[in-house]
């Protein structure tokens, strides 16, 4: 069965919104980070869907790059979260309040 492109786009838009809402509402740095990954993956899904729809391989190629970048970002992000946890013993972003106004 052939699935039309609209469904992919709606799914990826939904994933993107879930990611944005997650970033805005969640307080745990790791969950915020997972939401960011969700945003990247929704872009990946859009890219793959368009790539197959247009019959053009550039989109799929881009997705490989994005996955590599997302992995690097996760590594850097977790390292930074650990560095913060060692200093403050919490990763709740509401308690990050030394730097303000």
């Amino acid at each position, binding site marked *: 069965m052939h699935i039309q492109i609209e469904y992919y*786009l709606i799914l990826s838009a939904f994933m*993107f919104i879930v*990611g*944005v809402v997650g*970033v805005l509402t969640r307080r745990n*740095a790791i969950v*915020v*980070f997972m939401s*960011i990954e969700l*945003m*990247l993956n*929704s*872009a*990946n899904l*859009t*890219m793959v*869907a*368009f790539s197959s*729809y*247009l019959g*053009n391989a*550039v*989109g799929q*190629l*881009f997705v490989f*790059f*994005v996955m590599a*970048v997302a992995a*690097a*970002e996760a590594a*850097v*992000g977790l*390292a*930074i*979260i650990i*560095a*913060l946890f*060692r*200093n*403050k013993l919490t990763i709740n*972003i509401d308690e*990050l309040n*030394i*730097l*303000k*106004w």
Partner: protein
Amino acid sequence: MELSINYILNELNFIKPELVISISIVLIVFTDLIFDKRKQILPVISLISLLITGYFVIEQFGMNTFAIAPAGSKGMLAVDPFGAFFKMVVLFASFIIILFSINSSEIKLSSDRHGEYYTLIFGMILGMLFVISAADLILIYISLELLSLSSYVLAGFTKQSLRNSEASLKYLIYGGVSSGIMLFGISIIYGITGSTNLYEINSLIQAPQLPNITFILASILIFTGIGFKISAAPFHFWTPDVYEGAPIPITAYLSIASKAAGFALLIRFVKVTFIQSINTEGYWQLLNIIDWKTFVVLISILSMTLGNFAALWQNNLKRLLAYSSIAHAGYLLLGLAVLSNQGLLAIIIYFAIYAFMNLGAFLIVMLIANKTGSEDMDDYNGLGFTSPLLSVSLAIFFISLTGLPPTAGFIAKLYLFIALIDAEMITVAVIALLNTVVSLYYYVRVLKHLYLVKAEPDTPIIGVSALNTVLILMLLIPTLVFGIYFTPIVDFAKVSVSLLGF
């Protein structure tokens, strides 16, 4: 496509600066491993390789071509004088920053990790050089991420301090979100046009049956990612926190180099993607898809006003400079809003001068913080009497940042206002002028602390080493000289306005 070895070697000619930087990264890593005990070699290697890179960048002023072009399509990179200028700004800032780092007591604390420090700096440089000449959305995204990931780590480099790791995490979260939003925009643009190359997208969207509203949305999503890098107003929330928390050399670096790369990318993105034609007076006729003029004017007025007014009640010098850097992003965006080659000229002149004065201001703040251990304004009380060189220099840099004659900052603002008035954007020019008046207040407030408060017996006397004196003069003399004799900088800028294809 014929992928002969000659073809590859020929294409490599166009990315010589990037190649030198890549080789230096490897060299620094290995030097750090082999000469484990002698960390002082690392800055020397870095400075030498920056000079070599600079030589190859100067070569690029004569080039105007695509590089890494697969057969039958436009290239991934556009090598042109415009890019070469911004690469020079980045390299100049990197050169100064490495000299900063040698002196910074914050960086000295973690001397066993100096190898990583210089590697990450060079990672940032590589990302910026690619971002400046990238003409393909894939390359834009990847090089922007290379730049961002290195700077997240550098912002938290002295990881023992809480302020540092907090800044780093905030930078990472804001950066991750904005790059995610930008990526989503890129994916939509790819879906609409079927291409990722800016030049190809430009020729594809000339057709009128384009889904207009989607394209506008996608462009704004991409603008979000770039706006984050240049710290323009609705995307500026990270700036004060990261600037305050990061080590001072890194803060200075973010405020010049990262912003220069962001602006080069923004100008290339807007001009190349949306242009229809350029008239004889140098005004750009953009495609009737998105009203960039109104949009950029709104963003820039918001940045200026918010940056200047929030800076009024800051007591931390780094935070004050962060808000001032948001305000300066607003001024610089006005040069883009004019949508003409004259506006571009104004941006280039502004950047050339801004690099000197802003790095200078950060240098003085760093030297004072090295001694007193804080950037609080109350610690500056009476320093004008005990440390005259530093205070006079700081005064000159701040006057230049305000834009008063006879300093170079005046020339920068002058060209910007000329471009605005030529384009008959008088209202905007008046708003920018009023903002400059507001900014005078907070810059002068620092001078008040320096000179109008009597020196107490415990006011520190801050000695300046010979190297630092040279460094201060290197930044101070151009700030003064270009204020009076600015023909060379204008001539240089006139060479640099030419973007590939236009």
